[in-house]
């Protein structure tokens, strides 16, 4: 299968969600903080494209603002993971086999034993619930992922001749890592970032569903699902729509990741087949 259709489908799906989330910063069809009991549980159509929820809020507007919080949390969490994980991975690879490498990798193993949910539980117990917990928990979870991917890819580069040449030319390890290693693993990191982004969206939904993420009145997809649960007999639509939003976003990002991997690195494509 050629990379193109996957890349295009993924790009269109994630692009649409991103665009709607960005649009919600300046415009939404209806105000999501205004409660309007008279308009509660309207079916889709008319002034409310996707209907209203149990408090009379417009579902489309809620979903748009929810997209914004999901994307913000997942994006910052990827930033934390890359910001800490990539330098750690580069350092470990540059010091390959040494004590620094050992320490970084053992720390990684340790963080790996703490699932994002467990980190979120700990942080919530300490600081109380907020969207920040979700960001920190998912971000910390991302660190060892990026450190591992970076180290693995960088290690294979360190054996190559042009890196040897740079060493002979008198460049330090840090400089070689930044100038020669990083640019050559950038593609791989972009693909990994897409994957972690989509995992982050899923994790954020789970955390806000159990109340460890965004707090009311901020709309978030996970919280919308939690609130819809009691309404599942009377208004199943309220439980279906936010879930569909999550699925489409994650599907889009995964397809984009697959497409990017194939487009950026033909060698990986052959391995994946």
């Amino acid at each position, binding site marked *: 299968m050629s990379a193109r259709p996957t890349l295009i489908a993924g790009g269109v799906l994630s692009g649409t969600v991103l665009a709607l989330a960005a649009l919600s910063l300046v415009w939404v069809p209806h105000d999501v903080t205004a409660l309007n009991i008279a308009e509660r549980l309207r079916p889709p159509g008319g002034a409310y494209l996707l209907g209203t929820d149990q408090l009379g809020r417009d579902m489309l507007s809620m979903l748009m603002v929810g997209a914004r919080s999901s994307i913000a949390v997942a994006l910052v969490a990827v930033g934390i993971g890359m910001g800490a994980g990539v330098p750690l991975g580069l350092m470990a690879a540059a010091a390959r086999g040494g004590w620094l490498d050992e320490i970084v990798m053992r720390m990684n*193993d*340790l963080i*790996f*034993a*703490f*699932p*994002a*949910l*467990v980190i979120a*539980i*700990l942080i*919530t*117990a*300490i600081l109380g619930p907020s969207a920040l917990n979700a960001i920190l928990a998912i971000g910390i979870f991302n660190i060892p992922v990026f450190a591992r991917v970076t180290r693995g890819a960088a290690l294979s580069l360190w054996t190559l001749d042009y890196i040897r040449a740079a060493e002979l030319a008198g460049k330090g390890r840090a400089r070689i890592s930044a100038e020669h290693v990083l640019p050559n693993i950038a593609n791989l990191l972009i693909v990994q970032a897409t994957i972690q982004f*989509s995992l982050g969206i*899923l994790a954020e*939904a*789970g955390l806000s*569903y*159990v*109340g460890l993420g965004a707090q009311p009145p901020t709309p978030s997809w996970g919280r919308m*699902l*939690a609130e*819809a*649960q009691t309404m*599942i*007999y009377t208004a*199943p639509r309220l*439980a*279906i729509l*936010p*879930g569909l939003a*999550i*699925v*489409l976003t*994650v*599907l889009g990002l*995964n*397809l984009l990741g697959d497409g990017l991997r194939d487009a950026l690195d033909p060698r990986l494509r052959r*391995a*994946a*087949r």
Partner: protein
Amino acid sequence: MLRYALTRLLSLSLSLIAASIAIFAAIEVIPGDPAAYMLGLNAAPETVAALRDELGLSGSVWARYLDWASGLATGDFGISYTYRVPVADLVAQRLAVSLPLAAYALALSTAIALPVGLWAAARRGRAADLGIMAATQLGIAVPNFWFAMLLVLVFAVKLRWVSAGGFPGWEAGLGPGIKALTLPAVALALPQAAILARVMRSALIETLGQDYIRSARAKGLSRAQALRRHAFRNALIPVLTILGLQFSFLLAGAIIIENVFFLPGLGRLIFQAITQRDLIVVESVVMLLVFAVILVTFLVDLAYAAVDPRLRRR
């Protein structure tokens, strides 16, 4: 093999100690005195002091850590601040729901994913393979707790085959207990199975390109026979890795999904404990979850060595 197991066991113990220190330190930074909190504003200082002793809150940080850690090792998790019963009893009751749920889901997802992955690999590039790949792509994108809600919607609300949640307790018998866990286990298992099936398929396709498969074909085995007898076992290594990694997702998923089905498991316990600031329960349950993940990593390492003797020497 024994030496390999012992080295892994040593690293398991070190991880456990490091994790317990990290968790203890995290809870330690929280300001406030649980004893004073429990007794209210009007409590006499002596009563608070007595309760602090009873809860094991007096003494230096190191003494308290050692007390807590040695308690953990012997199954004494301390006394819950809010329930006033041993944490170990609370946790044991809840584990009797969460652990079977996670195990049930793990068994289901493996039972579904391995044959599906094998089938897709054997029909690589044909309609069945493309269909399976598309379905798994979708499965990966579905949050398990939402899938759980959809299952409730279909099987409990529309078809009325099962009740929407709750747990009768194992006292009611094995049958009703398993019935109550089936929908949650399916909800947990299917999204995991999607990932596992993809890994199984690509691992099989990778091994199918190896020379020994060509030799097996050359000596007269059919493609399907070579797949089953030679490729399957070699493809198990990446599958085991993913199974081990998935366990922590499965555990976290079980905790979240308990909320959808109102199951009295660890998840409900820990979320209540957070709102009631019952920190000793939070601390113990978190430690237990981390212990489970570390233990599974250890078991996966041993399983590698059992599947692939080459790994024992490392």
